[in-house]
């Protein structure tokens, strides 16, 4: 393995160091205390936002209502990632099934007990996304990790038996279309698309926040199924986990 030429090393370290210094200076010294601290909207503004959407979690109110468009695009990115994994891995053909080393009975029993709890926690966090920290993304990832635990401990076949190929593909695609349709439905009611259609409700209760709950649920479903589909494809075309 040849070493990188000395010029490259010097240039690399030098430019990177200079970059860090320049950016830090841009943050530190050009304005006392950072003017953005004063200029960003104050609490009253956020209270107004929360009141308008009905969600007490302001972060949810922002990314699922005011800036819903960005979230929609990012769900599309996620969907394309899942499709891309499928498309590129299916080119390689099926791998031979690798003899999986059975886990000890302690792990299997524990996984059997933990799996429903993990899924429940995932659902809880998804559904309460507009009241406490959480939301569709975190809840979906938690539920997906639960499935991954089951796949490692109990074997991928056991999990794949529950979530057949067609079911998971259909669910995932359905979740994406569901999100797009919920975004477009306000047109039928004369409102702008991507606006919050359902009533705001009493803040702090589950039934508040309008369509934020709907989006959280659909996104949670999508992330959950999507992460499982990715894992399944990797296993199908590479062997076992």
């Amino acid at each position: 393995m040849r070493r990188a030429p000395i010029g490259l090393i010097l240039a690399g370290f030098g430019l990177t160091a200079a970059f860090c210094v320049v950016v830090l200076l841009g943050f530190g010294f050009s304005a006392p205390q950072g003017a953005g601290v004063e200029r960003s909207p104050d609490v009253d503004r956020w209270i107004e936002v929360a009141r308008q959407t009905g969600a007490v979690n302001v972060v949810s109110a922002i990314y699922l209502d005011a800036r819903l468009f960005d979230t929609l695009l990012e769900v599309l990115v996620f969907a394309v990632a899942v499709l891309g994994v499928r498309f590129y891995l299916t080119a390689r053909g099926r791998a031979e099934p690798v003899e999986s080393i059975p886990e000890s009975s302690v792990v299997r029993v524990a996984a059997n007990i933990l799996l429903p709890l993990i899924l429940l926690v995932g659902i809880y966090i998804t559904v309460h996304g507009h009241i406490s920290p959480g939301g569709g993304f975190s809840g979906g990832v938690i539920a997906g990790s639960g499935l991954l635990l089951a796949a490692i401990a109990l074997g991928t076949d056991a999990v794949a038996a529950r979530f057949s190929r067609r079911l998971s593909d259909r669910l995932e695609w359905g979740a994406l279309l569901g999100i797009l349709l919920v975004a477009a439905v306000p047109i039928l009611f004369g409102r702008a698309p991507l606006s919050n259609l359902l009533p705001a409700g009493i803040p702090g209760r589950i039934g508040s926040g309008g369509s934020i709950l709907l989006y959280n649920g659909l996104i949670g479903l999508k992330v959950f199924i999507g992460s499982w589909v990715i894992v399944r494809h990797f296993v199908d075309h590479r062997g076992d986990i």
Partner: protein
Amino acid sequence: MGLILLPLVRFLFGGLSIASGRTSRLFGVLALAVDAVLLARLALALAGGAPSVLVVGGWDGGLGITLVGDRIGLTFAALAWGLGVAVVLYTWKDALRPYFFMLLHLLIGASYVLVFTRDLFNAYVILELLTLASFLLVGYERRPRQIWASLRYLILCSLGMSFFLLGIAVVYYHTGSLDLAEISAQIAADPGSAWVRLAASLLIGGVAVKAGIFLFSLWLPAAHARAMPAVSALLSGLVIKMGVVQLFRLSEVFPVGLTFTVLGMTTGLLGIVYAVQTYDVKKLLAFSTLSQIGYLLIGFGAGTAAARLGALDYAVAHGLFKALLFLAVGEASRIVGTSDLRALILNRNSIPTATRVALIVGTLGIVGMPPLAGFAAKAVLGSGLHPTAFHAAVALISVGTAVSFAKILPLLAARSSGRSAWNHIAAYSWLGGGVVLFLPLSAAIVPRSLLSATWQWPAYVEAFAAILVGLGLHRLLRNRPFQLPRRIFCIEEGTLVVLAGFFLVYILLQFA
């Protein structure tokens, strides 16, 4: 409302395309038809008076995402639509999976959003979506060289977008807003601050990786040359322009005049130098894309209305004739079996007539033969460039373009046999028609007063002189090959060059 319906409908069609197998093509046609109606409505709204402004979801501008349907946005949306038509036509008979069409819909839908958006973070998400869709399209045929080219593309673009995100952080830290209008107002109130220059260099450095500027977009030759012809046409014609549109929006907010002109001259000349010495037709087209972006940057940087509108006009023209060239060259390479220019010239009689005509039209367009697309746009651009240094740079780039394309001449003069498929002929006619009839098309982009530059004699003299000088230089240089550094296209050096480019922009901004 049309502003948000346009991408939403596209994305819906994209989502539906995966489910259906055989009807993907019909969905493509349907999507294009629906888009045409929506675009026409937006154009009517624009012609009627004020451009349509929409804050998505009905929130006020400070928090929500603002979309403005102005003339520039509509022009590029129409370009995206037109290239979509060309690609759907060209690939009509190819056995493409529905996955391809989903990516195509995603690409065009994302372009519809980027041309209208006035929000920095929305631009970030869309640019990342464009990166994803185009890198998946480059690797579509799953050949190892394509995979490597697209992986390099992905790594460099992801790096660039991280710079962009850091730039957003700097801007938010100092202004508290992500909306370009509000940021512009705050910068205008205090133009000399240091953070403006840092933010501008981070943002511009990030977008420059996607926009086809020489130092930053070193992934471009490999990626565009190795992809499928339809994909190369889309990349060179559309995706690069999206980066350029974002640079344009940034240029309205930050003081980047000098930076853009210097960058433009660099990329224009360096691209041409590489284009002259390559004998792979697709790499020639890719390097020439790098160089033509130089025109656009010089135009944006010059500051006069004529230069800016001329640059945008040229962006549309370039989209049309570069896509035409890539499609025609793709077909020719497929028939002959190679993209080596010398082999193509040897086998030139096997290239069908329609392909040859398409090559002729495209080449004439790119070298600026009056009255085709390139000439018209360059004339408007030139009329706005007052310092002679800029004018000389543009002239030099034109000469270089003529030199690099003079190699193709033997290919154009041949006795062709064979017919192309009807869908290829349709695609060529669609794009070629746009190139030939560009003057009436420009009337929609450029006001009549500026368009008068296209029928004044200095423009004609310049155009013909550039072509003749180029032909002469080509004769001189023909038998003197020279070596150019190739290491910069590898990934480590590429990253270093991007960093160096960031510093170049930063230093240039100090003089703004």
